[in-house]
């Protein structure tokens, strides 16, 4: 039985058999046979081509409504282009799976395996290979190289934190303040053997933070000095940063991010806002890795303080106060990369071996000079 268009009103379409680059003008007929409904494509000569309606597919995302291109399920390249609107409507009605395009089921399994393998290998590269290599290289790197790396980073940081892009953030160097700082370092450092000199800087910025850079740079912000209530607290924080210097953590970190930033950039690609995600992901990776390093530097600081006859419990005081005050986000960034503050405070208190009548590291006048180093 003919379902659509008899011979008196023939409907034609363009047919390509997927074997030769020829466009055949075919007469289209839809018929009911015992094996189901079939689309007959009558060529000018020879047997008609038969497409079962169950196999007919309509190509997706096609431009222009005047012509619709049909194909068969699977990879078969034969195509039928129909420009007759009523035939298109009829095909839409009769072909049950016109828009079922599951032509890659065999790929799905491979996709899952491949995704897992890819994530595993990139994780291995970023979390194991690059850090291991960086650890090895940080030890091997000559002191001069580390200093150059530190100098470059320090300059970048000062530029990044400056109000406008053409200047660098101001270095605080009031002479009395500097003298006090040197006295403090001298008390902490005798007998410690670094491959390079410790270079201590105070930057004029309200952030409550301090950090170490490759090659012996230790940087404190004015905000940290403002927040501290005694020179012993500052001594504890300096001890902590010296621990990083001793363990070459900043060099490790710089080498690590040299390796991993590029890799992450690859992964996240070019979608909008990729840079933000890149930054956050990088932070997370560093944070995960630095927890151990932070604890080790705390221990180093405790030992340094004990040797200098200073109480490590003052370090705990500082964190305690900061923790109480912190209602906004200023500590949030600190938390991500540093161990739990409660544990740090407990460790600092537990490590304390110095009685309360210790010799103060700075007298009141020197302490005030240090606090005013940025004036």
């Amino acid at each position, binding site marked *: 039985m003919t379902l659509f268009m008899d011979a008196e009103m023939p409907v034609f379409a*363009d047919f*390509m058999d*997927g*074997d*030769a*680059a*020829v*466009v055949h003008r075919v007469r289209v007929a839809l018929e009911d046979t015992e094996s189901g409904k079939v689309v007959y494509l009558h060529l000018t000569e020879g047997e008609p081509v038969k497409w079962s309606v169950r196999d007919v597919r309509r*190509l997706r*995302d*096609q*431009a*222009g409504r005047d*012509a619709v*291109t049909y194909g068969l399920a699977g*990879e078969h*390249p*034969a*195509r039928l*282009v129909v420009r007759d609107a009523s035939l298109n409507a009829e095909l839409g009605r009769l072909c049950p799976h016109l828009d079922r395009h599951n*032509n*890659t089921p065999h*790929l799905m399994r*491979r*996709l899952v395996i*491949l995704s897992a393998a*890819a994530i595993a*290998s*990139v994780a291995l*590269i*970023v979390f194991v*290979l*690059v850090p291991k*290599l*960086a650890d090895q*290289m940080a030890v*091997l*790197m000559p002191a*001069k*190289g580390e200093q*150059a*790396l530190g100098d*470059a980073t320090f300059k970048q940081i000062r530029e990044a934190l400056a109000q406008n892009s053409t200047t660098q953030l101001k270095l605080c160097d009031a002479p009395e303040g500097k003298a006090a700082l040197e006295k403090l370092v001298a008390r902490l450092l005798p007998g410690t053997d670094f491959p390079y000199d410790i270079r201590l800087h105070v930057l004029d910025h309200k952030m409550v933070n301090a950090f170490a850079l490759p090659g012996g740079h230790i940087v404190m912000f004015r905000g940290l000095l403002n927040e501290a209530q005694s020179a012993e607290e500052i001594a504890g924080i300096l001890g902590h940063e010296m621990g990083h210097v001793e363990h070459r953590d900043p060099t490790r970190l*710089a*080498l*690590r991010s*040299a*390796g*991993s930033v*590029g*890799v992450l950039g*690859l*992964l*996240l*690609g*070019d*979608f*909008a*806002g990729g840079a933000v*995600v890149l930054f956050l992901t990088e932070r997370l990776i560093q944070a995960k890795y630095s927890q151990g390093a932070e604890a080790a530097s705390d221990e180093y600081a405790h030992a340094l303080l004990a040797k200098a006859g200073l109480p490590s419990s003052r370090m705990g005081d500082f964190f305690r106060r900061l923790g109480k005050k912190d209602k906004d986000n200023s500590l949030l960034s600190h938390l991500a990369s540093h161990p739990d503050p409660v544990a740090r405070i407990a460790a600092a208190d537990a490590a304390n071996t110095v009685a309360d009548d210790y010799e103060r590291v700075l007298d009141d006048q020197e302490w005030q000079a240090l606090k005013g180093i940025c004036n």
Partner: protein
Amino acid sequence: MFDQSLQTDYAGTRGPLFWLALKTSTLTVLTLGIYRFWMKTRIRRYFWSAIRPGGIALEYSGTGVEKLMGFLVAVVVLAFYIGVFNLILMFLSFSLLNNNVVAYLASFVGLIPIYFYARYRARRYILARTRWRGIRFGAESAAWSYAWRAMLLWLATILSLGIYLPRQIFRLEKFRTDRTWYGQQKFCQTGNWKMLLRGARHYYIGLGLTITAGLGGFVNQSMLGLLVLSLPWLAIGFVHLRVTAFRRMTDAKRLGNDIGFCAHPRTGRVLGIYLLGYFLVGLCLVMSMVLLILIAVVVMVMLQSGALGYDSFGALFSGKGKSAEYLVYVGIALVYFGFFILLGVLRQVFVTLPMLRHYAETLEIRGGHHLATIRQRPRDEFSEAEGFAEALDIGAAI
């Protein structure tokens, strides 16, 4: 037999493309970028199907899945290369030379061969997934020798201060064309690089003026003022060179012995499409951003007056309302992502679409009746798809 000439129709329209691009790029952002492989696939399907040489549309048969898989493979290879290579470079550079300039430079130079390799592979993948009249296109595997050649030719171009450019354009195009197939028939690039010279004269004038200005600048600072004239001349001359080179080289392409092509895109039209297109993109962006800000202001005023019934939101300006604060963050995120989504979408609609239309409508195939002898070629599995190009963000417009 008559020389049958096939004209090319173009069926793409702005409306459907706009909605397709908007939908797919929103999904891309929502899926943290993973949907971009499907976005590319769908946009290509649209553009390909819009181009109809001899009335039959091109077909793009690539899939999102294979692109994602290719990307994963490329990421693993490149992650190892970039991660370890950069690290070693950084270490050596600081250890031996005490600075990082060499490391950055070497890291960049090390990616150049991969860049050309990826370009060729991406082209091969796209050809392998392009069909016309049911017959597949294809390209031979020659990515490394292409990369090698491209680097040498680019080096020659740079060392000659750009004078070598026409020859470079021709030789790279010949390399690619001579390895391109339609079914079991091979393309061939005839002619030689000298046929590009006529279209290169404005490029050379602009180049000459720019070099004069640059050299003169050492002697007399005021010579640099010449750049105001020479740089636009150079830029327009460059576009003219590219357009005429496309024209001449397409006219000199053969498919087998009997099928030829004729392209006549015009420089003025191409420049016009760019200028008008980007003007419209900018205009639409500004208008939609203004609209967004107006909506934001209205919402804020309504919130503050409690018109929406959320009292806690009213606390926005007193600094107590947490939920109101989140609302502001959501608003900022919407504007940020909305801007990038809209930029991409509008560029497709106002620049890529009219440009393709112009190139399509000015393309003819000569000797179309000889196509009948061309047979199908086997499917090129090419499981890595365009993964390397995708991973390295080698931006193709589509």
